């Protein structure tokens, strides 16, 4: 019964100063909608960044890692207590690449998290057109699976990706590379390997991913053509690229794959620490900015509730004289700020969604983007609401506590 009474008094306080209440609600609304917008936007930016990166980068990369240090292998064999003197050491031929790729693919393809596997034969080559000679990488790929993993087909600007499958002499060149070599569709380009083998290819496609490393150096051919170029047998690959369902679990999946494979299993974030760092930093900025806004909103509420307590101090005194205890007074004032928090939170969620929605239509034509990226993650909305409630609760509790400690005698006697 006394709770109902307290609520009634809270409501009377809130409705008797509509303007202040509105300001308090608006400040929470603003904080929460900014939290939602900032996080949605930053997640959108991160996702775009990651998506762009994954247009050439697989989640897990399997390859034959060369021994890190082979300057004095004998020393390792005999141990530190023996002195080994080795002069003019030379590396004899050792196994490059992965000889029997079919076996490895068969061993890992059953893993439930894996969504796609594609073999690659990557060769460092020179591309030559007349007198222009450029250093680059020729990727022998499985046409269908490569595109399935990286969406390569979507980045073709001229020609056709699929015709690679039909033409053993066809090559798809990066846009920057083609430009530097003055090549256009249907021109011929000479590819020279480190071993001096050269072969002519016909340009049947131009690809533009906006990633410099790809556009300026890469050429794609059918995997069999690449094998032929470096005189390797069927089944030889240099890299196996694996995509999994959730790229954030790459490390876990890589650990599970390692025992099944004799080769190096590397995750995307191991080889691209800057991507992860960029994502993390942007998330920190988003959270820091939005929490700051919420904090300011909290101060706003604190201020308004403090003013209310001062304004109503005589009422508080008489309520205490009539037998309302400290808990009742705290309840009366805390309920007000919680109501402000809940209303501000709900409006903030709606407003945050609207702002995000509008911003996601602002044109932004860079790289593969048409508009600003935006993500609508329910978790952001829930967290924003919870943070908003916590802020208003704390901001309301301090003035409520002050109200509860009012000495009625002091106020009534004046």
């Amino acid at each position, binding site marked *: *019964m*006394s709770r*109902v*009474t307290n609520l*009634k*008094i809270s409501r*009377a*306080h809130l*409705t*008797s100063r509509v303007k202040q209440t509105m300001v308090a609600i608006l400040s929470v609304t603003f904080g929460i909608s900014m939290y939602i917008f900032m996080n949605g936007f930053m997640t959108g930016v991160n996702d775009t960044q990651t998506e762009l990166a994954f247009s050439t980068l697989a989640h897990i990369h399997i390859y034959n890692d060369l021994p890190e240090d082979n300057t004095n292998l004998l020393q390792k064999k005999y141990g530190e207590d023996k002195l080994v003197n080795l002069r003019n050491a030379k590396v004899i031929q050792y196994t490059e690449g992965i000889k029997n790729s079919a076996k490895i693919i068969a061993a890992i393809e059953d893993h439930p998290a894996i969504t796609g596997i594609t073999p690659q034969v990557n060769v460092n080559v020179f591309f030559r057109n007349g007198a222009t000679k450029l250093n680059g990488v020729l990727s022998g790929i499985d046409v269908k699976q490569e595109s399935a993993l990286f969406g390569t087909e979507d980045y073709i600007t001229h020609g056709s990706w699929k015709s690679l499958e039909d033409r053993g002499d066809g090559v798809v060149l990066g846009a920057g590379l083609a430009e530097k070599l003055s090549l256009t569709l249907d021109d011929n380009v000479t590819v020279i390997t480190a071993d001096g083998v050269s072969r002519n290819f016909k340009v049947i496609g131009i690809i533009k991913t906006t990633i410099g490393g790809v556009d300026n150096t890469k050429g794609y051919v059918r995997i069999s053509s690449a094998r032929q170029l470096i005189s390797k047998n069927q089944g030889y690959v240099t890299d196996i690229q694996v995509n999994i369902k959730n790229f954030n679990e790459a490390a876990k999946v890589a650990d599970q794959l390692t025992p099944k494979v004799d080769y190096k299993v590397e995750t995307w974030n191991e080889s691209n620490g800057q991507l992860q760092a960029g994502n993390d930093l942007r998330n920190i900025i988003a959270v820091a900015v939005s929490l700051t806004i919420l904090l300011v909103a909290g101060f706003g509420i604190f201020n308004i509730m403090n003013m209310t307590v001062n304004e109503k101090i*005589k*009422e508080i*005194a*008489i*309520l*205490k*004289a*009539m*037998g*309302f*205890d*400290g*808990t*009742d007074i705290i309840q009366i004032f805390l309920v007000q700020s919680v109501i402000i928090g809940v209303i501000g939170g709900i409006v903030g969620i709606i407003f945050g969604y609207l702002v995000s929605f509008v911003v996601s239509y602002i044109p932004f034509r860079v790289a593969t983007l048409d508009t600003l990226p935006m993500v609508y993650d329910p978790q952001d909305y829930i967290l924003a609401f919870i943070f908003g409630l916590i802020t208003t609760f704390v901001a309301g509790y301090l003035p409520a506590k002050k109200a509860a400690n009012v000495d*009625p*005698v002091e106020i*009534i*006697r004046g």
Partner: protein
Amino acid sequence: MKEEIALSARAISKYFHEPETFQVLKDISFDVKKGEFLSMIGKSGSGKSTLLYLLSTMDTDYTGEITINGECLTGRTQNQLAAFRNAHIGFVFQFHYLLPEFTALDNVMLPALKLGKKSQEEIREDAYSNLKMLGLEAQAMKQSNKLSGGQQQRVAIARALINQPAVIMGDEPTGNLDSKNTDIVFDIFRQLAAERGQTIIAVTHDDEFAQKSDRILELGDGRLLN
């Protein structure tokens, strides 16, 4: 004989510590009978209001012992005292201190809702009959800040009576009223003491008001003069 004592004060002393230590009340003892209408008078600074606030249990900084309705209240916690005030003491101050956003009826109902012994319907009935007794039935649904000063003071009295307290305490209850309203308030007090057996303790400056009451306690320099 003993159950007729509504309130007793034993050896009450109180000090103010600021700006310097000063004894406001010096060893005051007295009893108030049930149904008695008591006025406390004295010059400004004589300690009469201070004494009233000690009796009201709102001020707990004193030595001595206060007993109301046979319950010793000295040494209880603030929350226990708040609950006791709610059930057993009604207050009327110089200013009405009504909640301005609430109607007269809602204001009167507040202490009873806090007490929570009756249903809301019963409390509404009680509040309405209290207002009626004070001639305010037409104002029951008006917002309290729309009433005249005399009406507001009468609403405050109705509020003080809602839980049928054993003791009603007034701090200059008529200090802010014209003579007509003063008479009305005095008559109400008189009636309450006589008909309902409620004890009334009022601090006042108004000698006429004091003369008409059952007993006068006069304070001077922190001591009882009579």
